[in-house]
Structure formats: structure tokens, C-alpha cells
């Protein structure tokens, strides 16, 4: 009987570059920068890494296919290196590979890396590529990520009878919160607090999403070295290790895209991955038990519905929770304490690991007072790849 990986894997060290427009840096520079922080934090030598995974989405723009790019950038000594790609969840997918390697007993120490170089695309937003295969280009609309996620709003409004104005107000608060938090974070891409009025009056990208409802498109890399709890305690005897309590991925079955049951106002995979993760971690009351969250706020509306999909806000009530500050940094359950995808930025392959990096450092109480979630012991990351009707969702729970 499968027992999951709860408490079988510890994070030994992590690194994360500043996310942003790194016009002067290649993917290799970003990887090296994250690696230097990560390996120093792990207090091991490069030769002790026995296997590695690298998450990256848009190989055409920078790192190409296969595992060679990471291996030859860090000159890893002929260890197995695997490139994984699962849309925007690629970073968590890399982390999963490393965690499973350790949990299985195949390796003692494994590396998970994520990198993306989006500012070599030549235009804003994500590059237009046939992410669902060539046939999809002949059939489905010439859609963009904001357009696909924006539809959550129209469907949500219809399902719960929440007026579009109220949705706009709630998602405006979400972006306002991310800017507040991002402004305090020296590694965030967008570090400027903005007013709710500025947010809600920004030009439409895809109705009802305006410019400020869309996350930053950034360059960046993040990394984790994982090991067994025993080894972690041996290397860092004075530090309570951050353990992986749950790590779940759910992939759309095609039901949302093809079958007429999904309401279009939620992300089905999030609901499923979250339930599996809560089961794995032994969580029964997520709203009370979880201390902080990093969720996939590629668009403000995604964060809104995610609050319900993670079973934190009751159905139809995410807008109310959001507007009363439940998820603010000083609220009951801070969400996006680092600024989130919205302001920390979203170099696709790195984002999942960046979320884990934030939770890891919060749990270790490493951040300065003004953005520290005090005494947090249990954190959740939610990393979503693809689009609402066809996606990959990962939920990780980390705790002391």
C-alpha cells in the first residue's frame, strides 16, 4: 500500500535569484546564481549531489531540450540529470523528481532546479507556441493565457450570482496585496506599491482582467537540495529541518475541456490535488491548520478561485474573504507573502521552486520583521501549469 512521502524528505538548502528583467544574464548565469546560494545553504559540496532534475517550460528560447544544459552549466560530474516540463508547474515537477529520488532510497541527496528566460522572447506575455500540440492549433482559438484565465470570472459570476463589479473589486484587492508584499521584497520583480484605483483602472488585457491583474513576466532561477531527514539533522544539527509533508500533482483528464460537467468557475485539478495533499499530510481543517500559502496567481482571478479550490474559502465566498483581508500579510492566512507570481515574477520553470523557497525561509523565520509570518509551522504551495480547462496542478505542503 502506497504511503506517500510525508516526512521522508527534508529540504537541505535553497537558492533563488532575484526575478526580473535580466537583460544581461543568460539562463546559465541565473542557474549559477541560484546554485551558489543553494549549495552554501545546504553546506555540502557539489560532488555530493547524486541526481538532478531541471524544470523549464519554453526550451526554444533558451536552454533547449534534455538535461545537458544544467549538467554542463554547473559541470555536474556525470550524474543523472533530467529535464522535466509540465507547463508552469515544471518547477514543482522537478522538485517532485528529486523528492521521490530521495524518498525511494535511490539517492541520498538530489537537486531540483528551475529556470526560465522569458525576456528573450521579444514581446510581453508568454510566447505563442502550440503547447497542446499541433492539432490544437488547427481547432482551438488563438487564445492567450490571460484570455483563458479571464473566463474564470465570467463563469464564476454566472455560477454564484456574484456581480462582475464585485469580482473586479476582489481581484483588485488581490493585486494590491501582492504589490504591498512585493514592495517589501528585495528579490521581487515588481517592487512598487500601487493603489487599488491604479489597479482597477488599468487597461484591459482580457475582460475583466486589466494589466495589473496579470503577473510579471520575468527571468529567474530557483533551486532546492533535498535529502533524508536523518542526513539533514546530521548536517544541520541546530536547525529543525523543513520536511515535505505532501507533494501531489493532478493532471486534467480532458473532462474540463470536453465534457459538459465542469463549471468553468474553478480549477478541478486544484481541488483534487489539494484533497490528496491534505490526506497525505493529515490535514483535516486547512483553513485553520495552514499558516501561510504561496499560490499560482498567474492572474488575480486565478488566486481568487484557488482560495475556494484549496477549500480555504467556502464556495462563493472567496471574494468576501479577500475583501476583508483574510489573505493579507497581517490577515489570518497570509497568501503570497513574497509578492507572488504577480510581483515576485513568473519565470515559468522557476516559479514552483520559488514558492517553496518562500515557504522554506518563512518556516525557518529567516525574513526581516516587516514581511515575516511569525511562528509559521505549516505552509502550502500551489503551482498550476496550463490553462483552466486543461492543466497540471501541484500542491506541496511543507512543515517543520
Amino acid at each position, binding site marked *: 500500500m502506497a504511503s506517500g512521502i510525508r516526512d521522508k524528505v527534508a529540504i537541505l538548502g535553497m537558492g533563488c535569484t532575484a526575478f526580473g528583467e535580466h537583460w544581461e544574464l543568460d539562463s546559465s548565469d541565473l542557474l549559477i546564481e541560484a546554485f551558489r546560494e543553494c549549495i552554501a545553504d545546504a553546506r555540502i559540496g557539489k560532488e555530493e549531489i547524486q541526481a538532478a532534475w531541471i524544470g523549464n517550460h519554453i526550451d526554444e528560447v533558451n536552454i533547449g531540450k534534455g538535461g545537458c544544459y544544467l549538467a554542463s552549466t554547473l559541470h555536474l560530474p556525470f550524474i543523472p540529470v533530467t529535464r522535466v516540463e509540465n507547463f508552469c508547474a515544471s518547477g514543482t515537477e522537478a522538485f517532485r523528481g528529486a523528492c521521490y529520488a530521495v524518498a525511494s532510497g535511490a539517492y541520498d541527496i538530489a537537486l531540483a532546479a528551475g529556470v526560465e528566460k522569458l525576456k528573450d522572447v521579444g514581446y510581453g506575455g508568454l510566447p505563442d507556441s502550440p503547447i497542446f500540440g499541433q492539432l490544437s492549433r488547427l481547432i482551438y482559438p488563438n*487564445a492567450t493565457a490571460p484570455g483563458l484565465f479571464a*473566463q474564470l470570472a465570467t463563469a464564476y459570476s454566472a455560477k454564484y450570482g456574484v456581480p462582475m463589479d464585485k469580482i473586479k473589486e476582489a481581484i483588485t484587492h488581490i493585486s494590491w496585496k501582492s504589490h504591498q508584499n512585493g514592495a517589501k521584497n528585495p528579490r521581487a520583480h515588481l517592487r512598487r506599491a500601487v493603489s487599488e484605483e491604479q489597479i482597477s483602472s488599468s487597461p484591459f488585457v*482580457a475582460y475583466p482582467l486589466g494589466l495589473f491583474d496579470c503577473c510579471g513576466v520575468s527571468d529567474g532561477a530557483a533551486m532546492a537540495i533535498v535529502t533524508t531527514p536523518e542526513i539533514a539533522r546530521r548536517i544541520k544539527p541546530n536547525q529543525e529541518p523543513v520536511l515535505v509533508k505532501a507533494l501531489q500533482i493532478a493532471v486534467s483528464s480532458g473532462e474540463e475541456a*470536453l465534457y459538459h460537467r465542469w463549471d468553468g468557475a474553478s480549477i478541478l485539478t486544484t481541488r483534487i490535488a489539494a484533497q490528496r495533499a491534505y490526506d497525505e499530510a493529515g490535514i483535516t481543517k486547512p483553513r485553520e491548520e495552514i499558516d501561510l500559502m504561496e499560490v499560482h496567481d498567474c492572474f488575480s482571478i486565478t488566486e481568487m478561485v484557488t482560495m475556494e479550490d484549496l477549500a480555504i474559502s467556502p464556495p462563493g465566498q472567496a471574494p468576501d474573504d479577500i475583501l476583508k483581508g483574510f489573505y493579507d500579510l497581517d490577515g489570518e492566512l497570509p497568501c503570497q507573502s513574497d509578492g507572488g507570481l504577480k510581483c515576485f515574477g513568473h519565470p515559468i520553470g522557476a516559479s514552483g521552486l520559488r514558492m517553496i523557497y518562500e515557504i522554506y525561509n518563512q518556516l525557518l523565520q529567516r525574513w526581516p520583521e516587516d514581511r515575516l509570518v511569525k511562528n509559521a509551522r505549516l505552509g502550502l504551495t500551489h503551482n498550476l501549469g496550463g490553462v483552466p480547462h486543461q492543466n497540471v496542478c501541484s500542491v506541496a505542503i511543507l512543515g517543520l
Partner: protein
Amino acid sequence: MIGIISYAAYLPRYRLNRMNIFSAMGWLNPALIMNAAGEKAVAGYDEDAVTMAAAAGKRCLQRFNPAELGALYLATTTAPYKERQCANIVAGALCAPEGIRSADFTGALKAGTSALLAALELSAVNGGKQALVCAADCRLGKMGSLQEMIFGDGAAALLVGGDKPIALFKGSYSLSYDFVDQYRGAGTVYNRQWEERWVRDMGFEQFIPEAVTGLCHRCDLKPSDFAKVIYPCYFGAARRNINKKLGLDPAQVEDDLLQESGDTGTAHPLLMLTKALEEASPGDKLLLVSYGSGCDALYFEVTPEIEKFNHRKRFSDTLAQRTELDNYTKYLTWRRITPVELGLRGEEEQVTRWSMAWRSRKAILGLQGSRCKQCGTQQYPPQRVCVNPDCGTIDEMEPVNLSEKGGKIVSYTSDMLAATINPPAIYGNVDFNGGGRAMFEFADCTLDDLQVGKPVEFTFRIKYYDPKRDITFYFWKAVPVAKEVS
């Protein structure tokens, strides 16, 4: 006897008031004011002769079974391909069987009636088997030209056969002249014309009376025997002269539709015929005459079946379904007359993989999905493993034609980021009536026309145009409608 058993007209929704053209281009050619009255129908940015022909054909086949077609002919002078039979694209969109005869009739504005004659004669020798004729044109005049003023975009379709015709085909007379009044070389997109006075006096005024007289002589009739004489001619004075020459009462002559749609080329005589059929009574004799590289004259007699014909007002309906295109530069952009900046996103490579498109031809051209024989779930694109989570049966599917079913909007947006010559891109999830779901682009609407739960119908449109390889690729879009499709 053989005759017309169904008809349909299709005018694109957008209408450009000719004063908009004059306001923009009158400085170049002040004489345009002479032809600046009324409006012209303008194909949407995602429409062309093929899509308009398919739209007319789809309406024409309503309540008929495409499986009974023996032939499908397309008439157009503005086919998007010189080599690739566009009739087959239309046949695919209409889910016509593959064992049919198909042909493109082109090269002359009388190609519409030539196709009709071929269809009637084919049906006659095939024991009355049905043949569908679609005619459509989307011709361009240079900016500031008379042609730009006069030409309109549109299509008409006629289904012919032996089963209860609403108008019997009684005779024809054809003329073929290499009279070069208008022409378009193989490598150009704009029409050229010789002196108007010559075209008028030596073209229209000679050939149309000659064709009418020839037919009357052959069928032992007088022009006054006809309830309606239908012929295209965009010179008002010439029409008066022709009527006078033939002794026609103006009430006998079908309106030329110049003010409403403009001259729709090969489709035009057939389009005018759909209007005449809409208003005809049993026993009426109709004379249809085309013009261009000669003339075809066809004589029909309306039967009592016309009174039983489902939904006769197909011309009035398409005429009434209109949206003002109040922007001349948008028209130029849609017709790719002037290049516009789409940003680097608009330059991303789109490779058409023909072998892939061929494998999925029924799904792409015909919007054919699959229906699970076990649970009845419709699914698109067609699946081999049933998507119903409570079923999951493998390889128990039957084909289902989803284009004739309507649907309902599940979610929608209007997207300013997507590269398109007609921003914003409007799209969303649609549930098919009877089950199943797919995401579609919405056509012929704005954000304000959309609402979750609103009914839609499906329309065959240009999916994309690849200028590098000169590929026009087609697919289906959803159009919001006021009433659910039955």
C-alpha cells in the same frame, strides 16, 4: 421534372456605407459621389468566398440530408486557391459524402449560372439526384475605384433535384463572348475595366437583350410572359434601356440590390433569384440572366411546392442581419489591402501540417465529433476513449455532425493580447446542445453580445491566413444568436 428544391442567400453581417468610402477617397476621385448611395456588404475579417459559400450552402441544406447530394459545384472568381478545389472545402464543411462530383466554376461572372446549368443537367441525367450549387464572391477594387464602390460580398446557394421542386427548370439559352469589359490577371487581386460607356453600351445593353430574346425564341415565350426577369447590371441607365428594348414593365424586373449588398459577382444573379423566389407565387415564370464573358439565361416556373417550403424569407433575413462597419480603414485591414502592425506575437510561425489536417479532415472541415454508443455523450474533437468519467468505454463511437447543433456559452472573454487583425479576440467555452464541450472563437459579435448561457450557432470561417505560404485555413466559430437552434 428537375428544378430548384431549396435556396438560400448569405450576406456577411457587416455593411459599409458608401459615403464612408467617399469620405476617405473622394479627394482622389470626386466622381465617386455618383455611386456613393447605399451600402455594400463586406465579408468579415474571417470570411471569404469559401466561407460565404459554405454559409449559404448550410442554410440551403437545412432540413435536407447532405448524404443525398450527388454533386457540389462552387462558383467564384475569388477562390483562395488556384490549385486546390475549393468546392471540396465547402463539401467538407457541409458534411457532403465523398462519393460526389465536385467542381469549381470560375473565370467569368456568369460562372454562377454555368454551375447551376451544369447541376440541373447533371440531375436530369441522374434521375433527379440532388446537386448543390454555391456561388460566392469577394472581389476587390483598388482604393478610390468605381469597383470598390460597387462590389459587395455575398453568396447564394441553390439545391436542385427531382423531388418536389419549388421551381421547375424549363429551358436555357447561353452566349459566350470574349468581351473583355472587366478582367483580373492571374497574378493580381484588383479588377480592371475598360471604358464605362463601352461596357454599358456594347456589353450589358447588347448581350442581356440578346440572351433574353434567344431564350424566348427557343421556348416560344415573350418577355412579358415572365413574372420576374432577374439580371445584374450596375448601370442604372443601361437597365432602363434594356427594359425598354425588351418591353419589360419595371415591376417585372428584379431589383439589382446595389444599394443593399453591392454587386456580388458570380453570386449576384443567384442572390437576386433568392429574393425573387422569396416573393414568387405558384405559376410564376422566372427568367434568370447572368452577365460576364457572355450570358446564361435560365427559365424557371414556380410550382405550388413553394408554398410548403420551410422558411422562405431567407434573403430578407440575411439582409436584415446587419451591423454597420463604420470604419473604412478597418475594411482595408480586413481585406489585407493595407498592412497593419500586429506586433512580434503576430509574426510567430504557424506551420500547416497537411497530413495532420487530412487525418482530422472531418473534425476540422465538418465539425464532426463522436458520440459514445454506450452513454450517448457527444465529444469534440472525436475521442476513442469516452470522456464521460462515469463511462470511459473504448472504441464504441459513432460520428456526430455538431455543426448543425447549436450550443450554449459556458464562459467567455475578449482578449487584447492575442494577435489578430480584428482585436479583441473573443472566445470561450461552449457546450454543444446534446452534450459535449469545446472552446470556440466567437464570430460577428462584440463582448456586449455575450452572456453565460446564451445560445450560439456554428459558422464556418477562416481560422488563420499564412501569408508566407499563402494558406487559408478554415475552421468553425460560434455566433451568439437570440434564439436556440432547434
